[in-house]
């Protein structure tokens, strides 16, 4: 009954005209960003974040959340039609989606991606509703050691599940923590690493950092290239999948939804990992695995459902624990902080309008996305034809305005440009920006909880092992941490044994 009342309350907020408009703008922007290769949800949210400063916190989060799950819908369009993923979570869709398009089945591919995303998104929201409240109550038992342990696990998982080298990911996590310390110490208020620059007393702002690292860097990488992706010249017809398509895809949609939702809850999980896992699962259990990579509809339905369900799952730790499980949620975390709200178990009690308003707007947003993505596909195809030489100056301009508008200061613009150079070099030297960004956003929480824990325990680290929740979480973190090193040493030893034996 409680959930029903809360839902009604949520719809009363979600259906307010300002919030419907915010939701619509969010999902439209998200779909557009998803369709356009070269800029992902992180770049889009960081660019549009300053526009939310004049909105209420509810409307701001509704819009930004709309961008996040909207991107997942839009990303499949370019994957299927151009064989270029609109964003990372749609990489896997290229494998079978493009093949389906080449076989003249672009319509059913696009259709099943849209319907699968809708069903998964809806199931994910139901899961969010059911899990959030009990988990929030459980989280009230968390103290500084538990929070420190969970955040550390999250940072470790993000590092290990990122696409590049684990060592480089760990280095980026450490560097992110260092960057988060620039400015005034939150306990003693003494300046740290400010180098007598007054603007650094407030620390480095998140917005120019992420805009530079993801927005500007992506543009710098793209303008080096001179590729012009060609759109597949095929007629897009029969957007509604046939009965046999539904029979083949229904299991994949359901499995993708469940897998995606739980992967989304895990720190470091999210759309990318869940889409890959879903594809692997479908291929493994399929009666005809040889069809995968040649136009199997399950290869589109499963991953697209998984990446959408993951977006709903990601809101569970965000709202209940106040811990963003991935970079996009870290930006939403930052957005709520800018609006004076603190995500966490108390948010559901003190600001139920934010939680239930966002949940209900996600139902509304999913319906909007289904309408936007099916009949408007020909329009999105036209958008793909906009030359990059027109797009990139506009994206840069939005980044510049966004950075400047924070404090009306050119300093933030320069910070953005510097991080743009850093992000560009990261791509050249195979470093990932995601662990850095997550560590940067979580750094203040890490420091506060670590120092409070050590003060409580009079300097003893045993406090993390004497409390059951933190003990379990820290143990998992340690196992995760040392596993790659152990396997590396075992591999090296085997190689050495093998080469000695053959001599």
């Amino acid at each position, binding site marked *: 009954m409680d959930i029903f009342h809360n839902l009604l309350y949520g719809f009363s907020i979600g259906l307010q005209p300002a919030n419907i408009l915010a939701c619509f703008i969010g999902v439209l922007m998200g779909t557009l960003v998803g369709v356009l290769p070269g800029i992902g949800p992180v770049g889009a949210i960081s660019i549009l974040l*300053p526009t939310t400063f*004049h909105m209420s916190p509810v409307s701001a989060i509704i819009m930004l959340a709309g961008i996040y799950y909207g991107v997942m819908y839009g990303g499949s369009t370019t994957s299927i039609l151009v064989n270029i993923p609109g964003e990372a979570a749609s990489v896997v869709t290229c494998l079978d989606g493009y093949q389906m398009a080449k076989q003249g089945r672009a319509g059913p591919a696009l259709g099943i991606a849209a319907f699968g995303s809708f069903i998964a998104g809806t199931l994910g929201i139901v899961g969010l509703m059911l899990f959030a409240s009990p988990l929030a109550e459980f989280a009230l038992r968390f103290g500084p050691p538990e929070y420190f342990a969970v955040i550390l696990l999250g940072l470790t998982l993000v590092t290990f599940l990122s696409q590049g*080298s684990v*060592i*480089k990911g*760990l*280095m980026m996590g*450490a*560097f992110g*923590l*260092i960057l988060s*310390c620039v400015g005034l*110490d939150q*306990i*003693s208020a*003494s300046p*740290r*690493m400010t180098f007598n620059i007054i603007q650094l007393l407030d620390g480095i702002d998140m917005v120019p950092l992420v805009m530079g690292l993801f927005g*500007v860097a992506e*543009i*710098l990488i793209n*303008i*080096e*290239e*001179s590729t012009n992706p060609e759109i597949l010249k095929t007629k897009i017809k029969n957007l509604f999948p046939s009965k046999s398509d539904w029979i083949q895809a229904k299991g994949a949609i359901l499995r993708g939804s469940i897998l995606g939702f739980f992967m989304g809850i895990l720190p470091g999980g999210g759309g990318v990992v869940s889409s890959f896992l879903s594809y692997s699962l479908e291929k493994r259990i399929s009666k005809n695995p040889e069809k995968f990579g040649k136009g199997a509809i399950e290869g589109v339905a499963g991953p697209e459902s998984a990446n959408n369900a993951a977006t709903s799952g990601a809101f569970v730790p965000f709202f209940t624990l106040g811990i963003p499980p991935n970079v996009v949620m870290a930006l939403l975390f930052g957005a709520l902080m800018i609006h004076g709200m603190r995500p966490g178990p108390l948010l559901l009690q003190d600001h139920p309008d934010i939680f239930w308003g966002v949940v209900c707007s996600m139902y509304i947003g999913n319906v909007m996305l289904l309408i936007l993505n099916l009949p408007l596909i020909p329009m999105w195809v036209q958008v793909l034809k906009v*030359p*990059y*030489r*027109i797009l*990139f*100056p506009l994206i*840069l*301009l939005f980044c*510049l*305005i966004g950075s*400047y*508008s924070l404090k*009306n200061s*050119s300093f933030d*613009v*320069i910070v953005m*440009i510097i991080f*743009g*150079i850093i992000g*560009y070099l990261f791509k*050249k*030297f*195979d*470093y990932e920006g995601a662990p850095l960004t997550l560590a940067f956003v979580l*750094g203040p929480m*890490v*420091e506060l909880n*670590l*120092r409070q824990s*050590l*003060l409580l325990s009079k*300097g*003893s*680290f045993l406090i993390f092992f004497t409390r059951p929740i933190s003990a379990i979480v820290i143990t998992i973190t340690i196992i995760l941490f040392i596993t790659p090193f152990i396997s590396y040493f075992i591999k*090296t030893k085997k190689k050495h044994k093998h080469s000695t034996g053959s001599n």
Partner: protein
Amino acid sequence: MNFRDQLSGFFWLVISIFVCVESIKSGVGTFRFPGPGFLPFWSGVALGTFAIILVATDLLKEKVGRKSKNLSEGKKWSNVILVLVSLFAYALLLPRLGYLITTFGLMVFLFSLIGKPRLWIQGVSALITVLATYIIFYVWLDVRLPKGILGF
């Protein structure tokens, strides 16, 4: 041996030493009473340790006989440098000349970077962009854009 990993590893080692020195100046404190430099110091130590591991594992790897990727092959580096210079110039000139003039200049330059369209097309595109963004951000969203010498 991967030259890029070696170079970046040594770079991060230098950064970690720098961070540790700065943290000591701020006061690391003790485990019982952690100071302001506590987290940056230990993060710096972690960064340095991982950098050493990166360099060491790369040195220990057997030669695979593959060339490491050439960073500059087939790339238009000049575009990157030009964009960065224009962005820095924009940041410095924005408070002095104002949003309208500075942005118009930047847009004309950026639109000309790829494809070399005609000057009048660049000018018109830049003008439309500046006016549209001025209306959206300054008028509608109430973002305080600098006025500069034009006074608006």
